[in-house]
């Protein structure tokens, strides 16, 4: 009897450490942040001393022009970099998915940027973008062209930040796409060759659709990351000039440290969190629904055979 009880409890015993770590490291900070977003809280106060203001932070933010600007910059940034990275990453993967000499070296080279710490990437690009000694302007000058205000003009600064991000994160999409490509069912490829598909037709009708599940997850991961990007932009432009590159995470960090509004910063984080949750759950439920549908139809098929 007793041993039966012990047996029943064993799994929970093994799960307990992970559950405790989850609770302490994940749920507690998130709960803390959500609670803080309802407070008017100055960093000099202890959390218990802060005034509870309900949804005021959230409502204030909605009418805050700078927050809305940041939100817009973030959306624009995420949409542009992720589209570019997907296009380039998938394109490269399609090009390099073949067995020719030296390909493994080339692949390794391609994924190097991803391994560099973002702060370093920011610094690197800041030197390259430097108005007088940076390689870009020096090159332009040596060709007799006018220098470009890489980081000092609003539009150029945004483009510069996009370029740096695309440089760093295209490899991420590249390796995941390559892995997806190499795990595609080989016989379906062969069948399509027999069916008369050219290389392009194979890409469009077979490879891309079959890679889609992986691409969707990759897209989602990149999108979440792009919404939270901070270091590179912090180092390159610190949000400027004006608010042209002030993405949301930068604004959150400044609200907390410069403006000393912890409650409002927490509310902003929550807006970002909500946005990402909508994306993630949307994708999750879509996948789930498709799986359930497929399973049901297959069951029906087995029965009416």
């Amino acid at each position, binding site marked *: 009897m007793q041993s039966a009880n012990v047996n029943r409890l064993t799994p929970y015993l093994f799960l307990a450490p992970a559950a405790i770590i989850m609770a302490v490291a994940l749920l507690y900070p998130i709960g803390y942040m959500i609670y803080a977003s309802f407070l008017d809280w100055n960093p000099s106060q202890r959390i218990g001393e802060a005034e509870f203001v309900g949804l005021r932070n959230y409502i204030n933010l909605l009418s805050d022009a700078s927050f809305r600007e940041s939100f817009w910059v973030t959306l624009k940034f995420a949409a542009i970099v992720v589209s570019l990275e997907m296009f380039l990453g998938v394109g490269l993967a399609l090009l390099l998915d073949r067995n020719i000499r030296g390909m493994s070296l080339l692949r390794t080279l391609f994924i190097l940027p991803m391994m560099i710490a973002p702060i370093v990437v920011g610094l690197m690009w800041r030197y390259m973008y430097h108005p007088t000694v940076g390689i870009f302007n020096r090159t332009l000058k040596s060709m007799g062209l006018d220098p470009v205000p890489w980081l000092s003009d609003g539009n150029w600064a945004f483009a510069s930040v996009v370029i740096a991000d695309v440089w760093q994160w295209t490899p991420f999409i590249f390796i995941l796409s390559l892995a997806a490509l190499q795990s595609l069912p080989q016989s379906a490829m062969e069948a399509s*060759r*027999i*069916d*008369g598909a050219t290389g392009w037709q194979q890409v469009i009708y077979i490879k891309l659709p079959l890679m889609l599940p992986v691409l969707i997850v990759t897209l989602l991961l990149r999108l979440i990351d792009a919404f939270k990007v901070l270091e590179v932009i912090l180092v390159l432009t610190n949000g400027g000039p004006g608010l042209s590159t002030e993405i949301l995470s930068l604004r959150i960090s400044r609200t907390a440290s410069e403006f000393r509004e912890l409650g409002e910063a927490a509310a902003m984080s929550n807006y970002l969190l909500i946005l990402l949750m909508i994306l993630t759950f949307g994708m999750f439920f879509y996948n789930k629904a498709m799986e359930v549908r497929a399973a049901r139809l297959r069951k029906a*098929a087995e029965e009416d*055979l």
Partner: protein
Amino acid sequence: MPRIVFDQVAKSYGAVEVLPPFDLALNDGEFTVLVGPSGCGKSTTLRMLAGLETLSGGEIYFDDKPISKLDPKERDLAMVFQDYALYPHMNIAKNMSFALRLARVSKPEIEEKVQRVAEMLNIAHLLDRKPAELSGGQRQRVAMGRALVRDAGTFLFDEPLSNLDAKLRGKMRAELAEMRDTIDKNMVYVTHDQVEAMTLGDRIVVMSDGLIQQQGSPEELFKSPANKFVAGFIGSPTMNFVDGELVAEQDTVWVRGDGFHLPLDAETSARVQNARDRQITLGLRPSSFTTDLTQGAPIELRIVVSEYLGAQSVLVTRCGSGEILVETQSAAPVKSGTTQTFGVLTDELMIFDKTSGLKL
């Protein structure tokens, strides 16, 4: 439909030669089965014909046209793959019409063709499903349908039934046999299952270790196999092989071995006269035994196990120290552990050279 000729075709992967140069001609409109154990090169041969593998040497001709440099799509082929190779993201109608859509066939024509083939294969009600929503047998039909819709000159089948369970395989085999008679195309079919080969093939090409062992009609292969490999591969239960020696007594040659002493018929006797000093292996089909002792030469066998299969039973017996399978009608009762005398139909005996394996 072209006549397909393999002329000194060879295939190696690096230094490993999987198919030494061979010749093979497939007649127009014939159902040819390439059969052999796994690794014998039959699938490679088919894939070279399909254009999925390059040739390491030689040339394949469709009529007089060399095709080894052509893309698969330029060879006017349709193929059914072992794992069906359906496009998972397309529904059945789209799967079946893919080639036609690529070839820019008009929409009504595509619909008409897909519908006709789907009805023939009993999958018309599945057209808007995805492959993952079908059972194994249904997927198999779709794969077949996708090939049939093409209306290509040559159909290739790469072990199309091997992923089905036994019952379904039998059913599909019968349907294929029926289809073979209604569709007048070149068909090349690869299988490791000799039953499939025997029931489907107009002509069977038996392969082993990259070599063509023999080709011919099912009957020829069964009745006069070229060597021990073919004799053992074709027919079920498999042929019994026992070592022995040839002894001449008057104008009849006898085979003598451990526990048996059997006369050969006149025709075989005449053929093996000159091989009397060679070491030989006797081949005995399990079906060559009879319990009617008025027919055939007597042989005494000790019954070890009786495997009851319904109307027939397969007896595992001992003859001297060797093992012999005997097929009998279940109606005649046999007891394990007893010794019984059977008649051997001597005109069905085969003599093989022990070292080369060639039939004498």
